[in-house]
């Protein structure tokens, strides 16, 4: 009886450990394009890009930055805002969904409020100015351009980057 109880406790402790370990070890990219930087700073040089749904292995964390490695072995620092602990599932009926992974563990890409729903909304709201929203999204400033802009305006960060 005692042993049975102890066994249950040990199992529970192992389960806690497993959950915590899994949550820390792997994270998914939750933005369209995530930036892998050379240093844990918003001024760090962008070394590579990772895509929506990519699984990254966490090496360490420093403030809001994760040091990660992707499936291709590329490494870098990525801001926590680009990551989720959930597994991003790219297709409905994916093995993860079929296996019954709960809503808290997965995020369905392309589902819910998506391109199809936007299409329906556009059809019903012809005056909504999506043309300018698209033009707006086409105005892209790269991190390098933003850094150059600050330098040209002699904007200098006090106490270094965050």
């Amino acid at each position, binding site marked *: 009886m005692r042993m049975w109880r102890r066994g249950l406790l040990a199992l529970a402790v192992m389960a806690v450990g497993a959950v915590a370990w899994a949550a820390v070890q792997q994270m998914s990219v939750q933005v369209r394009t995530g930036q892998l930087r050379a240093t844990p700073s918003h001024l760090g040089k962008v070394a590579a890009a990772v895509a929506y749904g990519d699984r990254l292995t966490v090496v360490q964390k420093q403030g809001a930055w994760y040091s990660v490695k992707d499936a291709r072995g590329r490494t870098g620092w990525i801001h926590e805002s680009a990551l989720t602990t959930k597994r991003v599932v790219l297709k409905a009926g994916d093995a993860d969904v079929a296996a019954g992974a709960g809503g808290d563990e997965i995020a369905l890409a392309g589902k*819910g409020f*998506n391109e199809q729903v936007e299409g329906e909304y556009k059809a019903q709201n012809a005056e909504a100015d999506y043309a300018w929203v698209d033009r707006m*999204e086409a105005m892209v400033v790269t991190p390098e351009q933003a850094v150059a*802009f600050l330098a040209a305006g002699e904007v200098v960060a006090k106490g270094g980057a965050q």
Partner: protein
Amino acid sequence: MKPRNPSLPAVLLLLAVLIAGCASVTKLGTQLGQGAGAISEEQATSINRSAEALEKTFADITLEQEYYIGRAVAATILQTYPAADEPAANAYLNELGQALAMASDRPQTFGGYHFLLLDSEEVNAFAAPGGLVLVTRGLVRCCGSEDALAAVLAHEIGHVQAKHGLRAIKKSRLTSALAILSVEAARNLGDEDLKQLTADFEGSIMDVTQTLVNNGYARGLEKEADEAAVAILGRVGYDPRALVMMLVRMGESVKPGGPGFGRTHPTPQDRIGALDPSLANKPVVADPAARRARFTRAVGDV
């Protein structure tokens, strides 16, 4: 030896594991707990209820869905406040805005941050979820310098960062939309589901747009956005007091209760009063000639 019920600590620990692992298995956990006699039915109901409530808040909206909400909110606002097709001003707003967003607590959103000048005399700005920021001519004119304009954009980034727009969405719509989503996990949507989802989407856009254009946020959220602005300005190297200077100028041109910020924001005096008083003691940040010149060139005559 007859098997006995597991001890209370063991059951609670197991429950904690289950809750931490996945809210949707909480029910199973509470059933186990009840069966073992460790928790009462009442306690089980309460645990189940709070776990379900957790599943239906604005925080459950994925960044991808936030992106589609933001696009629709921006497209809807642009119906009333047309875009100003001025490439130089818009390029400048995007360079400045991107430099600020990068240093925010949320540098990455699904579709990134983008900024646009609105052809309106009203003193106003809107941050659509996900990072589509719209600023009127009237507001840009209130800014006497790049630092002051940076304060305006940083305040809007503060709203995006804290997902204030999404908080305006009524809970009933999220509950409905997320229920459909759980069906969608297993198969593609039928016509009825798509119709309901579109209605939820439309309702959500209305909730956010109403708040941005007519009702405004609660004072506490405006204070949060102002504090985020001060933090961002400091990190990047702009003068955090530029926010105060901008608010003073705005106070001269905005009538309380009038259109734009007069209706949706606390008075500039109230906002200044809510800021950290130590701001006044911060060292003065220079406004070099190169910065003044490009500000005048880009938005000097908007």
